[in-house]
């Protein structure tokens, strides 16, 4: 009798503890998303004109909007290239940090700095570094005789996206490196020692032990970073504003401009909805891969 009353009390407390957080997230997360989906079916504007139900009209318009197609492609390009680079570089950072280094604590702390800097600050930092006339990058490249004239990194269609990717890789590689490092440190020393006795070279050990055992961590990190990269906004907004010729315009920035600058709220909502669905699909696919990765570890 007493036990069950206690149990009931604990259940009640549980729901009460959960309630405030859920209420807040419902109000500022779930409700707005539903509302965006609904808005995407109206030709809503910020102007006082009443909005009209247009069904899938906004979506039909998207099919025709070449700039939207470009933004969609740019988003995937940005996500794929920057996440791939971050993973490769992050992995090599992690391998290095896993070694016994002099001043390892400091090296590790330095890795955290780009991660902690506000994106807006790092974007304006890179804007200055990439400045065509007075930027450090052009100056250094010229001194190293790698270039003869100063390229205009942010003003050229071909290089602007690369400049954006470089700034993003700089900022987010640390996150990748630290997650991978932590994953590496959970791998037992015994396995390495056994392999060393068997005469495995360090490259073999990395390929045959570290990499497979690190796979689940790697996939998880990939999942987090990919979803983040797909939603990139701050960096583009400050660094290039989407230009030149929309070469760096991504879904978030294009939808934002459409919604707030040209006040086409319904149309912008349709873009956001397409983006949300894309993120959802992407997340499902990556979660599937993640499960497979864990399955392999547990199975083998």
């Amino acid at each position: 009798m007493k036990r069950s009353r206690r149990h009931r009390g604990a259940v009640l407390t549980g729901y009460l503890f959960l309630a405030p957080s859920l209420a807040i997230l419902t109000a500022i997360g779930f409700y707005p998303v539903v509302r965006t989906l609904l808005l995407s079916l109206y030709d809503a504007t910020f102007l006082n004109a009443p909005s009209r139900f247009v069904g899938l009209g906004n979506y039909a318009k998207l099919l025709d909007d070449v700039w939207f197609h470009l933004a969609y492609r740019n988003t995937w390009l940005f996500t794929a290239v920057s996440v791939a680079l971050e993973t490769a570089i992050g992995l090599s950072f992690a391998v290095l940090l896993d070694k016994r280094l002099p001043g390892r604590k400091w090296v590790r702390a330095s890795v955290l700095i780009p991660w902690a800097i506000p994106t807006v600050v790092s974007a304006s930092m890179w804007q200055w570094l990439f400045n065509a006339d007075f930027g450090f990058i052009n100056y250094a490249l010229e001194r190293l005789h790698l270039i003869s004239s100063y390229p205009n990194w942010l003003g050229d269609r071909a290089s602007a996206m690369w400049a954006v990717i470089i700034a993003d890789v700089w900022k987010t590689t640390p996150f990748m490196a630290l997650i991978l490092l932590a994953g590496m440190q959970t791998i037992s020393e015994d396995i390495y020692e056994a392999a060393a006795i068997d005469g495995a070279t360090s490259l073999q050990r990395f390929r045959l032990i570290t990499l497979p055992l690190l796979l689940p961590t790697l996939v998880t990190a990939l999942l987090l970073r990919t979803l983040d990269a797909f939603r990139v906004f701050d960096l583009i907004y400050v660094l290039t504003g989407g230009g030149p010729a929309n070469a760096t315009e991504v879904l978030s920035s294009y939808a934002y401009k459409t919604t707030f600058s040209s006040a086409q709220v319904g149309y912008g909502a349709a873009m956001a909805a397409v983006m949300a669905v894309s993120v959802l699909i992407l997340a499902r696919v990556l979660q599937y891969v993640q499960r497979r990765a864990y399955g392999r570890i547990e199975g083998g």
Partner: protein
Amino acid sequence: MKGTKKRIAGWLAAIAFISTVVGGCGSGSGSGGASPSSSASKPADGEKVTIRFAGIKTFGEDSWTELVKQFEARNPGIHVEVHQLPPPSKSTEIHQYLVTALSSGQNDIDVFTGDVVWVPEFASAGWTEAMDDYVEKDQYYPGVIEALTYQGKLAAIPWYVDGGMLYYRKDLLEKYGRPVPKTWEELVETAKLIKEKEQNPKLEGFLWQGKQAEVLVCDFVEFLTSAGGAIVDENEKSVINSPETIKALSFMKSTLDNGISPKSLLSYDEEPSRTVFTDGNAIFLRNWSYVWDASQDPANSKVAGKVGVAPLPSFEGGKSASTMGGYQFMVAKNAKNKEAAIKFAQFLSSRESQLYYAKKVAFSPTRPAVLEDEELRKESPFLTELADVFNGTVARPVTPKYPQISLKLQATVSAALTGSLSVEKAVEMLDRDIQAILN
């Protein structure tokens, strides 16, 4: 593939269904009705009235402190609260601020500064108070009054106008005995000649602003108008698909291709192009009036005293055109204390306030009388000399949908300049897009 498309379609249909069932949503986001509650409140005698003023940043943190102080001293019953907006180079953000503030109906601001191109948009949305009864129209340039009039009503009180103009190196033109170019063709010729003779690899021929931003639209409108073309006609129909547009756009692109203009200007807005010019590394520059002061200050300019300014050239047989820029004062329709708000806007547009701004940052006044000030004539002679340019400026498309058109122009013109679209294709696309926006 077909299966997925079908499924997505089904999904969307389901959402559509839910939305009709759930209903609502009709009022659209953020545009809820105005709340009239407080707009009627009248201050009791002796009580201080507060008006909220949103003004752009023009030359520093306290762009408005001095004028506000003067106004408050003369109107002890009124207190002005200043919300500093970003500078005009951030016009997208300023526009967003104003649209969100005004559309909410929560009357956050009473008086504000806005770009001349937003006047039709704000007026047609019913956000601005008609000013016809509060402005002595004959005291201002007629062109300005016309630009601020939408559907027969004056929607703003004039502040300053600006226009694109041609800055040139007086010394270099004299050295080679060349006149100030009247046509674009002549400008290219002169630039080629001087570049060749000077043998200075750093010297650029002609600088304008190619960054994907509002300023690109301004430059484009100047080239286009001086070729005799236009974007939208008086019936709000797109007329951009014309040989004139192709001529103008091709010319812009050719300056980049033939080396008269550096490729780097594709990322230039006003200031980067100004720096190259005042560092002595360019012969011609298209820019706004602020460059005059900047180029005459020996501390920051290597070409002080060697600069001339003239109306922009035109194409053979065309007429010189200068895009109308500049900010104006508007009074919100649901301002809390309309009387005080209008008084303040009138004060800001007065002869002495305009003189203050003309002296401080060389803003071109919208009242001809301001230019009679002797001191000003001495300090900024070009304000008087170029009064005709300022007052013959061309407006960008006059339509409430301007912001949408501008975004399309920025992207498409930029794409044509960088070569990702052919000029012809770009013009076709623009025509289609602009027509779609206007319908």
